[in-house]
């Protein structure tokens, strides 16, 4: 299969999920776009081997993670300058209470590793074993990161949680 069609197919199949994964790690839409661009350009340059086709999802996930954490290791001023301030979340259904900003701020307060675990668990339905496999940590570590993240979110959303309980 020609490189171009293979890459286009990989984007069609995994692009949106990869973008969302990157967005939840870096917390910035423009940077998430750059990350995806870098990963796919590298893929086009390397060409697609048969093995890569079989391991597309895992390969792309790993490549996106590496690119994201590599960006996060860059100096803070560069990162602050890149922040575009666009919303990270969008409603998943039509009738949503407008508390997006509060949730975004709460998520933004988490370390990227914890935010990533929350994303994989809540939005992608990964098990802790799958998260551990993808992120290269033990299942216990993955589960602890999730626990810490939820505790922090609970603390940050404390007041609103009461409201949610009432309205739900």
């Amino acid at each position: 299969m020609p490189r171009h069609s293979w890459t286009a197919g990989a984007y069609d199949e995994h692009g949106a999920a990869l973008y969302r994964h990157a967005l939840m790690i870096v917390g910035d839409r423009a940077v998430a776009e750059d990350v995806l661009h870098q990963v796919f350009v590298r893929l086009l340059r390397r060409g697609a081997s048969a093995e890569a086709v079989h391991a597309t999802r895992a390969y792309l996930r790993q490549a996106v993670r590496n690119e994201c954490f590599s960006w996060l290791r860059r100096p803070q001023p560069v990162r602050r300058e890149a922040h575009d301030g666009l919303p990270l979340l969008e409603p998943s259904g039509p009738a949503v209470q407008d508390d997006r900003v509060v949730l975004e701020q709460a998520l933004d307060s988490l370390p990227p590793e914890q935010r990533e675990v929350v994303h994989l668990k809540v939005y992608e339905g990964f098990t802790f074993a799958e998260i551990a496999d993808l992120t290269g940590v033990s299942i216990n570590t993955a589960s602890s990161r999730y626990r810490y993240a939820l505790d922090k979110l609970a603390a940050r959303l404390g007041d609103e949680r009461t409201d949610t309980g009432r309205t739900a």
Partner: protein
Amino acid sequence: MMTDDEQGTDALIEARLRRYRPAAPPADLRRRIVPPVAPRWLWATAALLALTTVGLSWATSRVELRTAEILGDGVPAASLPGGPTDDLVTGGERE
């Protein structure tokens, strides 16, 4: 071991998070990442057009040269592409 209260709190937070999802990629991101490629028939048509143009150009120049030769405009027959050599023109009678 998690208490019922903790599990309830977790469930509430997860439910609240699920009312949203991470933003989708912008519509034009695919085009920026995977630039569109012209379909094969377009490349084939372009190649055919190019070949036709070259062929027609060659044929026209050949007709012009032949006409000039016939009209005696002083164009040597040997200068025609694929034209006769001096020997052929003179029928080898020069000697």
